[in-house]
């Protein structure tokens, strides 16, 4: 309903890419919910519907060399990061053509090719992982791109300063997590480590106001989450997570800060989940009126309206984008249906790496 909003400040291809990706996530997940009802997808299925602007805006601020760590509500992140919808859908079906060979399901999407490190079903579990990935980038002796000369990395606890030596990779690790993770020790330990060692982590907090069924106000004494990050001397940005432009601008600024050697940065994306926590959630903990109120700010609707208001999109073009997304989803369902079940004889593969001889 952002008719009064200024024009989208991007070149048309990017502006439309953001729309297309939000549509792709929305259509993928609407179909996934149907398929869940039909028994094709089982286990836990956590829908991102309502929050699409966050993944789309943030991930388009990264480069292919960056790393992404996400949560169990990660279909959208996986898709925008560049994973094929076919591989995602087949994984949800449990087929061996899925990205994780049917071993992961909805919550454990992984892709080495796009440096997508999951897909983590432990709240806060991805944060230490992201810190470690960033640490590797800091320490790697083979890093191709040095930090700018003279970049200061602060002081080590021992009092000995760390010089980057021009040997580190100039990558960003983007770590997505929800407001619920903020209550975990892993959050505090990870932010402290990242700040202490000035690691290139972009912390992306998707604050949708509910940790499953517990509202932020009922779980945190301090509900301003950026204050918590600031306590670790990490710079913070708050962004409207329902507005893909606000998200993208914030993420671009944040990623640039991190990439240029400024150390970690924390962005709080204020967003809202339109659907239940998972397919098992009867939603007893929030008013329908509250959900409806947030839906008025729906990221797809407001962005489409804005594009149209400024002559960047026609209804025909929108319908074409939507049809394209729907066709991609249907193709992925066909792909997943045609997929095969991994033979039970292979049950224990990939528990350990194959011995060197077998690997060769």
């Amino acid at each position, binding site marked *: 309903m952002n008719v009064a909003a200024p024009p989208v400040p991007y070149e048309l291809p990017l502006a439309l890419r953001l729309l297309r990706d939000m549509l792709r996530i929305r259509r993928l997940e609407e179909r996934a919910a149907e398929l869940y009802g039909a028994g094709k997808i089982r286990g836990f299925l956590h829908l991102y519907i309502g929050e699409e602007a966050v993944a789309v805006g943030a991930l388009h601020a990264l480069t292919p060399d960056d790393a992404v760590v996400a949560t169990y509500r990660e279909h959208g992140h996986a898709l925008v990061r560049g994973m094929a919808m076919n591989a995602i859908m087949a994984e949800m079906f449990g087929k061996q053509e899925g990205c*994780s060979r049917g071993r*992961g399901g909805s919550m454990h999407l992984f892709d080495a090719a796009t440096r997508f490190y999951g897909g983590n079903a432990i709240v806060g579990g991805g944060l230490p992982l992201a*810190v*470690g990935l960033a*640490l590797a980038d800091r*320490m790697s002796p083979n890093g191709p791109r040095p930090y700018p000369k003279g970049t200061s990395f602060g002081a080590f606890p*021992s009092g000995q300063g760390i010089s980057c030596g021009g040997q580190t990779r100039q990558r960003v690790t983007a770590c997505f997590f929800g407001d619920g993770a903020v209550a975990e020790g892993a959050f505090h330990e990870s932010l402290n480590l990242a700040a202490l060692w000035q690691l290139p982590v972009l912390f992306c907090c998707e604050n949708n106001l509910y940790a499953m069924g517990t509202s932020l106000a009922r779980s945190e004494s301090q509900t301003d989450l950026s204050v918590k990050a600031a306590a670790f001397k990490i710079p913070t940005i708050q962004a409207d997570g329902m507005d893909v432009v606000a998200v993208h601008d914030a993420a671009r600024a944040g990623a640039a800060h991190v990439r240029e050697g400024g150390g970690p940065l924390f962005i709080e994306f204020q967003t809202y989940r339109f659907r239940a926590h998972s397919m098992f959630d009867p939603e007893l903990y929030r008013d329908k009126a509250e959900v409806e109120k947030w839906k008025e700010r729906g990221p797809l609707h407001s962005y489409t309206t804005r594009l149209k208001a400024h002559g960047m999109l026609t209804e025909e073009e929108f319908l074409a984008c939507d049809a394209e997304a729907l066709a991609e989803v249907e193709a992925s369902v066909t792909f997943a249906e045609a997929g095969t079940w991994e033979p039970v004889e292979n049950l224990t593969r*990939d528990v350990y*790496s194959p011995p060197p001889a077998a690997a060769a």
Partner: protein
Amino acid sequence: MKTSYREAMREALREALRGDPRVFLMGEDVGRYGGTYAVSKGLLEEFGPERIRDAPLSELGFVGAGIGAALGGMRPIVEVMTVNFSLLALDQIVNTAAALRHMSGGQFSVPLVIRMASGAGRQLAAQHSHSLECWYAHIPGIKVLTPATVEDARGMLAPALADPDPVVIFEHAQLYNLEEELQPAVPVDIASARVRRAGSDVSLIAYGGCLPKTLQAAELLAGMGINAEVVDLRVLRPLDGEAIMASVRKTHRAVIVDEGWRSGSLAAEVMARIVEQAFFDLDAPPLRVCSEEVPMPYARHLEEAALPQAAKIVAAARAVMGKA
């Protein structure tokens, strides 16, 4: 020349750090302090604070960071001060390190080494005396090593680092001062058990901190005319079932020695396998010598009573020999 277990471990670390720029050591007080058990003493001066990385008291955080760094191409050695504190990191070890390869369909393996001190015997009471090796040995996706000799302290780190999957190394705190002759640079494997004393009457099967006590018991038994074989498990996951069965088929009697609590212990697993695989080779039911089922008490006499001791091993061996 005699070398201590501690020096052997330090030399293994030094060799790894010198040989591979991807290797670094991270943990609480590994740098300036020189390591809680002085294992890493002097390494900070040689390798600097980036590679001998002091970490805050954030076991979950820095173990998880080790996993991430391993994924990012490094070869981290994460030292968790003691097994007791590793409970704070168990989530990252079990839910991420052990599971990642499988749940990513083989896309990501975690070449991480985690070292920690374990075990009782120093009057450190209930929160600093655990022997929880079997908890880790329960988990598919990781490997569990228990070096019990100076040779293994020196040799196990290199193959652990070369392994593409996570490896947990338990160093029993009572072993750090153990001194033995060390042959220069004999490579060891991280796949097999080893017979430490050949014998024909009874198999004494032990690991980690119980190995010296078990060897001592074997000497006492020799004086009683019982020729005990001592099998050092060395690797708790995967267990070397063949070596266990080979010994039991030879002696027809087995006593398993384990500092863990009896119920659900590693000794229980070894015993179950013997019963499954070598039942008809047995001349007597196998026995176990484990820790008593009590949080470790502080007072010396109570702690000694709670732990496996040579005398208890001797008694169990005599019992399976029908000489109780």
